[in-house]
C-alpha cells in the first residue's frame, strides 16, 4: 500500500523536474556507453529464457543514476521508447518493472497507452500505481470507462489503492456490474474510498443503489471515529455489533465501540462476559485493553467470581497482562477454585504480578498438586516478583507441614535467596528427612565458606547415605566457589578425627578441592589409614590435588605403593601435576621421574603427550630416548615429529638426532617422508642418514567378531535381522532428536526397534537433569556410567560419535578418543584438518577406534568425495568416510556416484533421502535410496547406517519408522538377489569392549 499523500507532496517537485530533464534529454540525445547502448538493443529482442545480462546492465545503470538526473531521465526515456516500439512483450514487462521504481510523469503517456492492452495492462498498472505523480492516477481514471472485465477490475483496485476519491462516484456505478469480478472490485473500492455516502448496516438502499455491505459500514464507522465524531461512530459500531452475522465483523465493531466509548463501553463488555461465547469474550477483553483505567480493573476483578469457569480463565489471563496489583486479591482467591483450569490461569497470573500474599496458595499447589499445576506453581514461586517475597518464604520454610516447607526451601534455593541461609541451615537438621535433603541442596546453591563448618558438621552426622552424598555435594560446591580456600579446609581438617569411615572419605575428597598445606597434611595422614576405603579416597584425593604441592607424595606412592592400583593412580596424578608446572625445567624433571617410575605403556604415553606439549629441545631429547621402547614407539614418533616441526632450526642438533632415530625405527612411509622433510629443512646432517626400507603397514581395519553383549543388544527384537546378516546395522543419529534430550533420543531409537545410536556433542542428557549436563567429553565418570546404564537398559548400543571436532594437537584429540573409548564407541565422525591425519593414523590404531570423515555441504572442506579420498590416501584404513548422502545432494552431487567413488573407504553413513531440500521417508524422495543401498550391498559394505532425519523435528518418529521399514524391506530384497554374498566385516569393531 503506497501512502499517497506524503509521497505526492514529497515527490511532485522531483517528478516535474525529472520530466523537464527528460525533455531536455530528448532535445540533446544522451550519450550512453556502447555497452549500455548495446544492452538496450538486446533488451528490445529479449525473450524469457535468454540471458538477462543486458537487463542487469540496464537495471544497474538505473540504480546508479540517482545522483545523475540527466542520465536517469535518459534511461527512463529509453524504457518508454521500448514500450512504444515493437519490442517483445518480455522486454516491455521488464521496462514496466523498472519504471515502477524509477519512472515519473514523463513515463506516464507510454504506460497509459498500454492500459487497455490485453497482455500488458497489468504491467502498465504495476508501474502507474507506484508512480507518485498525479498524472499516473489521472491516466488510470481516464482508462476506466473504456476498460472491461479483469482490466477494469485492475484499474478499480489501483485507484482504490491510491485512495483516489475523485474516482469514487464512477466506481460506485460498477458495484452492480454484471461481471462479478468488476462488481466485487467496485464494492471493495467503494468501502475503502467511502464513496461519500453515509453507509450503515441495515439501512435500506435507495432504489438503484446497492446496500452497503457490513464491511463498508465498518469502514465508514472507522472514518467517523477518525474524524472525531465519537458518538456517531459508537452508534454505528453498536448497531453493527448487534446486527452483523459475521463474528469477524462483530469483533471489529466491538473493538471500534470500545475505542469510541472507552470505559463507558463496560456494560456491553459485562453483558458479553456474562454469556458463554468465549471467543467474543476474548475479543471483548482484548478490545478493553485499550482502556487502562482503575475502574476497568476493579470491574473485571468483581466480575471474576461470578463468571463460568472458561470465562474466568480468560479474565485471569487478561488481568495477568494488565498486571495491576488491585486485582491481586481476586486472582489469589481464584487460585483456590475447584476448577483446575481456573487455578492454573490464576497461578500463571500470580507469577506475573503476585506478591507475598500469593505465597500460601502457590506453596500449597507446589506441594500437593501434580502435573502442570505443580510445575507452574513452582515456576511462579521461583519468579514471584516483590521485595518481601523471600522473607515471607522463610516464614513458610519454618512452619507448617513438611511438604509445604520443602517447597518453600526449594524455592529459596532456586531464588538464590542468600538471606535465607540461617533458616535453611537450621532446617537441615529437621526431623523430616525430605526437609533435610532439600535444605542441603539449597545450601549447595546459596552458601559460601562462612558456612563451611556448619556443612561439615551436617556431613559428619548425616543420618543416611543420601544425606551424606547431598552434604558432600554442597561442601564441594562451597569449596569450589570459595575465595578463601583455607576457610573451608580448616573445619574439614578439624572434623576428620571425629568422623566415621564414610564421612572421612567424603571429607578427604572435599579437601582435594581446597588444597593448601594443612589439607595436604591431613590427606597425607589419611593415606596411612587402616581403613582401606579412607586410604583409597586419600590416594585419589592426592591424585586430584589442585597444585604441585602433592607431587612428592604422589611420586613416592607411584614407586612404592603396595596396591598396584594406587601406583597407577598416583603416577597418573603425578603426570597431571607435572603439566601444571609453569617452569619448563621442573616440568621436564617431573616427566623424567614419571618415565622412570612408569611400568605400563599407558602412563608412558601420557608422559610423551606432556613432553610433546612442552616442546623444548631437552624434552625432544627425552622423547628421542623413548623411540627405542617398542610399546610406545608410535606415540614417541608422533611426538618427535610434532616437536621437531615446531623447533626446526632452533634446535638443529636435537632435531637431527631425533629425526635420524625416527628414520631408523619408523616403518610408516608417511612418517618417514615427514622426518626426511624435517631433516632437509634443518640443514645437511653431518652424514646422510641411513634410510631403512621398511614394509608398508598392512593397513586393514581390524576385524573382530561381535561380542556377546553386543549380540544381545543388537538382536533384542528377536533374532538377527536380514540386514544384520549382511553386516548392516541400522541406528539413529541422536541429532534427529535434537529437540529432545539424549535420553529421549535413546528411548525413541529403542521404540523404533533399533539397537544402535550415534551421539553428537552438546545434546542435553536428560529432561530432569538427572544426570545433568550435555553429552560430550566433559561428562564425569559417574555420569558416563549412568549413561551406559541407560543405554544398556534400552538395549541400544552407542556405536558412533560425531560430528565432533578433532583438534590439531594430540592432547586435544586424545580427550575425544579417551572419551570415545570409555563410552565403547567404534567410530568417531569428524571433519579434522588434513594435517591431523598423521596423528589420527596413530590414534585410530592405538585406540582401535575409526575416524570417519563427514561431509557437510559445499563451502565446507570435505563436501566432495574426491577431497575425502585424496585426504585419506596413504592413511590407515581406520580412516575413511562418513557418507552424508543428503549433504551431497545439497552440494549438487549425485549421491550414488559419490558412494561408488568411495568404495572401500566408507566406514559410516548419515543416510538420507531428500525431496524439496529436506528429509523424507527413505524411498519416497529423489535421492535414489534403493539404488544407493544396492550399491552399498555390491561393495560389500559392512557397518552402521545412521538415520539422521533433519525434518519434522518435533514428531519425526513416524517418518523414521518408515525409513526403518524401507531399509529392512530393501535389505531383504538385496539379500534375496545375492544370497551367498556375505562380505567380510571391515566395519572396524573396537577390539576391547568396556
Amino acid at each position: 500500500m503506497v501512502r499517497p499523500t506524503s509521497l505526492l507532496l514529497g515527490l511532485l517537485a522531483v517528478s516535474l523536474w525529472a520530466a523537464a530533464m527528460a525533455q531536455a534529454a530528448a532535445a540533446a540525445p544522451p550519450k550512453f556507453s556502447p555497452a549500455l547502448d548495446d544492452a538496450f538493443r538486446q533488451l528490445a529482442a529479449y525473450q524469457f529464457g535468454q540471458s538477462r545480462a543486458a537487463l542487469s546492465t540496464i537495471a544497474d545503470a538505473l540504480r546508479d543514476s540517482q545522483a545523475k538526473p540527466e542520465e536517469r531521465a535518459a534511461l527512463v526515456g529509453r524504457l518508454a521508447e521500448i514500450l512504444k516500439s515493437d519490442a517483445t512483450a518480455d522486454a516491455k514487462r521488464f521496462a514496466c518493472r523498472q519504471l515502477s521504481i524509477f519512472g515519473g510523469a514523463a513515463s506516464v503517456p507510454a504506460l497509459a497507452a498500454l492500459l487497455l492492452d490485453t497482455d500488458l495492462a497489468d504491467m502498465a498498472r504495476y508501474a502507474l500505481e507506484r508512480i507518485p505523480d498525479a498524472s499516473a492516477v489521472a491516466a488510470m481514471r481516464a482508462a476506466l470507462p473504456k476498460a472491461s472485465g479483469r482490466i477494469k477490475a485492475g484499474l478499480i483496485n489501483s485507484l482504490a489503492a491510491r485512495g483516489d476519491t475523485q474516482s469514487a462516484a464512477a466506481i460506485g456505478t460498477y458495484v452492480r456490474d454484471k461481471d462479478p469480478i468488476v462488481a466485487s472490485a467496485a464494492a471493495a473500492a467503494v468501502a475503502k474510498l467511502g464513496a461519500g455516502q453515509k453507509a450503515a448496516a441495515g439501512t435500506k438502499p435507495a432504489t438503484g443503489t446497492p446496500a452497503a455491505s457490513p464491511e463498508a459500514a465498518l469502514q465508514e464507522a472507522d472514518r467517523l471515529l477518525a474524524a472525531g465524531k465519537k458518538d456517531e461512530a459508537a452508534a454505528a459500531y453498536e448497531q453493527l455489533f448487534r446486527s452483523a452475522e459475521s463474528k469477524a465483523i462483530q469483533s471489529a465493531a466491538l473493538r471500534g465501540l470500545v475505542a469510541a466509548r472507552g470505559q463507558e463501553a463496560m456494560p456491553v463488555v459485562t453483558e458479553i462476559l456474562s454469556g458463554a461465547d468465549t471467543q467474543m469474550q476474548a475479543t471483548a477483553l482484548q478490545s478493553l485493553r485499550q482502556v487502562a483505567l482503575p475502574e476497568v480493573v476493579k470491574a473485571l476483578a468483581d466480575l471474576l467470581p461470578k463468571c463460568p469457569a472458561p470465562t474466568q480463565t480468560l479474565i485471569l489471563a487478561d488481568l495477568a497482562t494488565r498486571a495491576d496489583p488491585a486485582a491481586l486479591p481476586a486472582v489469589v482467591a481464584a487460585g483456590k477454585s475447584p476448577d483446575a483450569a481456573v487455578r492454573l490461569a490464576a497461578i500463571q497470573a500470580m507469577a506475573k504480578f503476585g506478591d507475598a500474599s500469593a505465597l500460601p496458595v502457590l506453596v500449597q499447589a507446589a506441594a500437593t498438586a501434580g502435573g502442570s499445576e505443580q510445575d507452574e506453581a513452582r515456576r511462579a514461586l521461583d519468579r514471584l516478583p516483590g521485595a518481601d517475597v523471600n522473607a515471607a518464604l522463610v516464614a513458610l520454610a519454618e512452619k507448617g507441614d513438611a511438604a509445604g516447607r520443602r517447597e518453600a526451601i526449594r524455592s529459596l534455593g532456586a531464588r538464590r535467596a542468600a538471606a535465607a541461609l540461617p533458616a535453611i541451615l537450621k532446617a537441615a537438621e529437621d526431623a523430616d528427612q525430605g526437609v533435610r535433603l532439600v535444605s542441603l541442596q539449597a545450601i549447595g546453591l546459596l552458601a559460601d565458606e562462612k558456612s563451611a563448618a556448619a556443612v561439615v558438621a551436617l556431613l559428619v552426622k548425616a543420618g543416611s547415605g543420601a544425606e551424606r552424598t547431598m552434604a558432600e555435594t554442597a561442601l564441594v560446591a562451597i569449596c569450589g566457589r570459595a575465595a578463601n580456600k583455607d576457610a573451608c579446609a580448616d573445619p574439614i581438617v578439624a572434623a576428620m578425627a571425629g568422623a566415621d569411615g564414610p564421612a572421612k572419605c567424603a571429607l578427604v575428597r572435599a579437601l582435594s578441592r581446597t588444597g593448601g598445606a594443612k589439607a595436604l597434611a591431613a590427606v597425607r595422614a589419611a593415606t596411612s589409614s587402616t581403613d582401606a576405603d579412607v586410604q583409597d579416597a586419600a590416594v585419589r584425593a592426592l591424585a586430584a590435588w589442585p597444585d604441585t604441592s602433592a607431587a612428592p607424595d604422589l611420586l613416592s606412592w607411584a614407586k612404592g605403593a603396595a596396591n598396584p592400583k594406587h601406583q597407577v593412580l598416583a603416577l597418573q596424578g603425578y603426570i597431571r601435576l607435572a603439566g601444571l608446572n609453569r617452569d619448563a625445567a621442573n616440568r621436564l624433571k617431573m616427566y623424567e621421574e614419571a618415565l622412570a617410575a612408569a611400568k605400563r605403556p599407558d602412563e608412558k604415553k601420557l608422559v610423551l603427550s606432556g613432553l610433546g606439549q612442552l616442546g623444548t629441545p631437552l624434552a625432544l631429547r627425552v622423547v628421542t630416548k623413548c623411540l627405542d621402547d617398542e610399546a610406545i614407539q608410535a606415540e614417541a614418533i608422533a611426538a618427535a615429529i610434532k616437536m621437531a616441526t615446531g623447533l626446526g632450526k632452533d634446535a638443529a642438533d636435537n632435531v637431527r638426532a631425533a629425526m635420524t632415530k625416527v628414520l631408523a625405527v619408523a616403518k610408516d612411509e608417511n612418517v618417514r617422508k615427514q622426518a626426511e622433510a624435517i631433516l632437509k629443512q634443518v640443514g645437511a646432517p653431518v652424514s646422510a642418514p641411513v634410510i631403512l626400507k621398511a614394509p608398508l603397514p598392512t593397513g586393514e581395519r581390524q576385524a573382530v567378531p561381535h561380542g556377546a553383549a553386543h549380540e544381545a543388544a543388537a538382536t533384542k527384537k528377536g533374532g538377527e535381522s536380514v540386514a544384520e546378516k549382511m553386516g548392516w546395522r541400522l541406528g539413529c543419529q541422536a541429532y534427529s532428536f535434537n529437540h529432545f534430550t539424549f535420553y529421549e533420543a535413546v528411548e525413541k531409537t529403542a521404540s523404533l526397534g533399533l539397537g544402535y545410536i550415534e551421539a553428537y556433542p552438546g545434546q542435553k542428557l536428560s529432561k530432569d537433569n538427572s544426570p545433568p549436563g550435555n553429552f560430550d567429553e566433559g561428562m564425569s565418570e559417574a555420569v558416563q556410567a549412568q549413561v551406559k546404564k541407560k543405554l544398556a537398559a534400552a538395549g541400544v548400543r552407542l556405536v558412533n560419535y560425531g560430528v565432533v571436532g578433532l583438534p590439531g594437537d594430540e592432547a586435544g584429540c586424545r580427550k575425544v578418543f579417551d572419551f570415545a573409548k570409555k563410552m565403547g564407541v567404534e567410530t568417531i565422525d569428524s571433519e579434522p584438518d588434513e594435517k591431523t591425519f598423521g596423528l589420527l593414523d596413530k590414534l585410530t590404531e592405538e585406540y582401535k577406534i575409526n575416524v570417519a570423515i563427514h561431509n557437510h555441504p559445499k563451502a565446507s572442506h570435505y563436501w566432495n568425495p574426491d577431497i575425502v579420498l585424496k585426504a585419506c590416501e596413504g592413511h590407515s584404513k581406520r580412516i575413511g568416510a562418513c557418507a552424508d548422502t543428503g549433504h551431497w545432494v545439497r552440494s549438487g552431487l549425485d549421491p550414488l556416484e559419490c558412494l561408488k567413488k568411495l568404495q572401500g573407504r566408507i566406514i559410516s553413513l548419515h543416510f538420507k533421502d531428500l525431496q524439496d531440500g529436506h528429509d523424507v521417508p527413505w524411498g519416497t524422495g529423489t535421492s535414489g535410496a534403493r539404488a544407493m543401498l544396492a550399491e552399498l550391498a555390491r561393495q560389500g559394505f559392512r557397518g552402521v547406517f545412521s538415520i539422521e532425519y533433519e525434518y519434522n523435528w518435533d514428531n519425526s518418529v513416524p517418518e523414521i519408522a518408515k525409513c526403518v521399514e524401507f531399509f529392512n524391506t530393501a535389505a531383504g530384497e538385496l539379500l534375496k538377489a545375492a544370497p551367498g554374498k556375505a562380505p567380510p566385516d571391515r566395519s572396524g569393531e573396537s577390539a576391547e569392549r568396556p
Partner: protein
Amino acid sequence: MRRFGRRAFLKGTLAAAAAPYVLSASAPGAAGRPAPSNRIGIGVIGTGGQGGWHVKGLLEEADVQVLATCDVDAGRRENHKRAVEARYAAEKASGAYKGCDSYGDFRDVLARKDIDAVLIAVPDHWHGLISVMAARAGKDIYCEKPMAATIAEGRAAADAAKRFGRIFQTGSQERSGRARLGCELVRNGRIGRLHTIRTYLPVDSYTQGPAPAMPVPPGFDYDTWLGPAPWEPYTEKRCHFNFRWILDYSDGELTDRGCHINDIALWGAGPLVEGPVEVEGKGRFRDDTLWNVPIEFHIEYTCASGLRIITESSGQRGIRFEGTDGWIFVAIHGGDLSAEPATVLRSAIGPNEVHLPHSNNHRRNWLDAIKTRGETVAPAEAGHRTASFCHVGLIAMLLGRKVKWDLKREQFIGDAEANRMIARPMRSPWHL
C-alpha cells in the same frame, strides 16, 4: 487443559451464546479424542512440502479435525485429502471416512462455516493476501514465514488479524525451542550491554539449469499460483519449492531462513531495536535466466539505540549476540546454544527478570491459543516486524545505498524510490 466447546465457539451472536455451555461427554470421539463438536476444524491451504508436513502433524492432534486440503496442484491436494481420510478412517469402527474435501481455490475454504482455522503454507507472494482474506472471514490463522512478500502486505495482514480478533501464529518456529533461553539471557544482561548481533545465513547453492517457457501441466492452476504476482511464462523451475529463488515471490534466503534467524535476533534485542534504523547492504544477485535473488550479501542495520545487527550470507547458520561481557550463539535449527563465558548458559532467569513466552511446539502453541484465545508465541505483529526487517535489507541492496527506516511509521525517511518498494501493485483481479 480445558476443553473448548466448538458449538459455543462457532455461534457468534449473543443470542446463540445464551445457550448453556455444554461439553459433549456423552458422545466422545474415537480413541480418546474429544467429541467432533469439540475439535478445531482446520483447512490447510497449500499442501506442498511444508504444508504436507503440517497436515501430518495436525492429524496427530486429538482436538483437531482436518476438514479440507487446498492446493492449486490437484495431485498435491488429492494426495493429502486421501492421507487425511485414511488416517481418520483408521479410528472408525466402520473403517471408512469421507470427511475431508479438497479445493483448488482457497476462497472456497474460507467460505466453509465449519472451518475455524486455516493453516497457510503457500508460496510467500500469497501469504499476506490470504491472511487478510482469512481474517476477514473470521478464521484463526497459522501462516508460514515470512509474514508476507512485501512490507505493505504484512502490515495489512497484521492489521486484519487485530481488527477481526483473530489468533495468528507466524511460522517462526525457532521461537518454540531453545532459542528462547538464549534470548532471555541476552535480554537480562548476562552478556552485559548488547552492542552487536550477527546473523549468519549461508545460502544453498542450487543450480538453476535451463528453464524455458513450457506448457502448464494438467492439474496445475498456474493463473491462481501466480495470483497477485506479475504474469510471466510458465516454467517448472519457477513454481514448487523453487519460487524462493525469484524476487517476484521471495527475497531468497534473506526471508527464507532469514525470517527464522533475524526473528530470533529481534526477539533477543527487544527494546534495543528502535528507529530510525540505518540500513546499508551489499549483495550479489543470482544472474540466471530465471532465478534472481541475492546469493551473497552483507547488510548492516544500525538502530537509534546504537545496536548493530549484521546479516551475512556466510558462517554457521545462526545468531551471535555480542555484549560487553561475552557472547551467546544460537544455532538454527533447534536452538543449540553456546556462549563465552560458557557459564552464562547455566545461569537461571530469576524473579523480577524478563521472561519470554514459553512454547515447545509451535503448532501446538497455536492450537492452545485458539482454545484459550490467548497470545501465540509468534503473533502477527512480531511476524510482520521480522519480515519487514528482512525486506528493508533487500531494498537497501536493490538500491545499493544506505536507507533510513522509520520503524513506527513504516516508511523510509527521505528516499522516495525506497518507499515505492514498500508495496507491490497486484495483478488483477487481486487486491488487499
